[in-house]
């Protein structure tokens, strides 16, 4: 029987999760090791965000378990198929986040605070892909960011690396 833990979101929803899945979070892993995780583990992460975090963790866990159970026969083909499956899953995951930037933002913070390096790196790559090739004004519009530079500051910034702002 797998050891289960109960995670409580900031809006008091309970998530029953296998230890192996949730141990990907260095923060929670440390709590479990310290013996501090008895009963419900209260997390100041909303249920919507926590569900997404767990979706990611389960997918990652699934992947590592399958690799351990593989025998060598037909492994190559299986790995290739699996890689395709993971790619497909990741693309779907990315597309959802691109469409809802609030969730993406919350997930970035949650992965940072729960110390999930793989998820954090994945999300940072996603944001990097979203801003690549875009001008500052386009990026501001995309993320609803206010331009807080004075006109003088902005002029100095664009003068410094003028070429990078060529349309």
């Amino acid at each position, binding site marked *: 029987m797998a050891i289960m833990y109960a995670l409580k979101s*900031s809006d008091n929803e309970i998530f029953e999760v296998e230890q192996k899945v949730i141990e990907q979070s260095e*923060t*929670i892993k440390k*709590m479990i090791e*310290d*013996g*501090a995780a*008895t009963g419900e*583990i*209260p*997390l*100041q*992460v*909303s249920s919507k*965000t926590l569900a997404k975090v767990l979706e990611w963790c389960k997918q990652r866990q699934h992947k590592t378990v399958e690799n351990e159970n593989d025998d060598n026969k037909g492994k190559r083909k299986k790995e290739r198929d699996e890689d395709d499956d993971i790619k497909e899953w990741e693309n779907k995951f990315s597309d959802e986040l691109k469409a809802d*930037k*609030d969730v993406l*933002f*919350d997930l*970035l*913070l*949650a992965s*940072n*605070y*729960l110390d999930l390096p793989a998820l*954090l*790196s994945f999300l*940072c*790559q996603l*944001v*990097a*892909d979203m*801003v*690549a*090739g*875009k*001008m*500052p004004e386009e*990026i*501001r519009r995309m*993320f*609803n*960011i*206010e*331009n*807080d*530079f004075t006109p003088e500051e*902005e002029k100095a*910034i*664009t003068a*410094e*690396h*003028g*070429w*990078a*702002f*060529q349309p």
Partner: protein
Amino acid sequence: MGILSCFKTLISLCDGEAATPAAVKSWSNLPENITSLIMDHLYYPDQIRFRAVCKSWRSDNVFAIKSADTLPWVFAYRKYNNDPKKEDVYCIYSSSFFLYDPSGKRRYTIELPKVLVNARILYSKYGWILLSKSSIDFRRLAFFLYCPFTGKIIELPTLEKGNPFDERLLMSASPNSSTTECIIFSVRSRIRKNILCISICRPGDKTWTSHEFLCSFGKIHGVACWKGLLCCMFSEQLFVFNPETKTMKTYPHSINLPAVTVEEVTANRLIESESDEKLLMIYFDRDCHCIRVFYLDSSQMNWFELENLADKLLFVGYTDSISVPARGKASELANTVNLKSGESFFSYFPRGPRLLHSSNAQMNYSWIQQPWWGWNNIQELNTVWIQPPSSR
């Protein structure tokens, strides 16, 4: 740690999300470690634009952040091959130049600072170009370090003019480096006088310090800084100078190398591979029509051939030979030696065939050859490899 205090830590760690009302939940309030991580995934020009979005994204420790660029860029300027007075291909006569970004597949047009028009390119590394130009005293040369990405210019002391074809310049590190001292070396082989002259200066110096050695080995085939030493390649031997002790040593080549024709000299054949601290030598073998790569065994100071570059790729030119680890985009070109001639780019496997022009890997550079509208056919380009400043 008690249960309660541990929960408190976790709660305070998560506070960023919980305590933030919708108004503060703004992308401009991303923690700095996250914006830095995003920057790590961006190519150099995207990093510049990203930092221009808002104040909090303009992180101060930008010099600690590497860009995702692994492939060197191409610095290009127009060649005036119709004007006999302007026949030196290493001189930039035009008032502007181009930077080609192989990752973003974009060309940027940049104005050349007036002081550098008619200057001659001597060396390119770490995102900087080393140039020389006649000084006000026409018997002397003025030297400049120029970073085309930032527009920064560092003036270096002047040096007596020599024969530009018997002279090589190089630098040991970026002037921005906080770990390695930036030393600029000038190596002159005065064949008739039987003198090898090495001059040294550092950014900020008022004069060069020169060391003369009564020996001559002919034409210089390549130069590199390797483990803090200045290495010069000649047809018969390797010359090694230690800038700290100001002493030199020569090592005759342990292998027979074929004679080199004049045009083959126009490549810097020594390359320092920073990832594994190896000194590499490139050879064009006319008998097998292939490129051969050797490495120096530092215990015996002997050359041995490398059949496979594995996790590296090399970029070879007269003023600009570099070794790049095969990560990121560069992994498509792993184990290749990359050469250019004007606007043409070629990739070879060591001892092997040339990579097909239409291959995906070749497309990193071959797109540059596409005819750009508005160009006169007579005007061709001279090109120099250049690493973006934050790629290392």
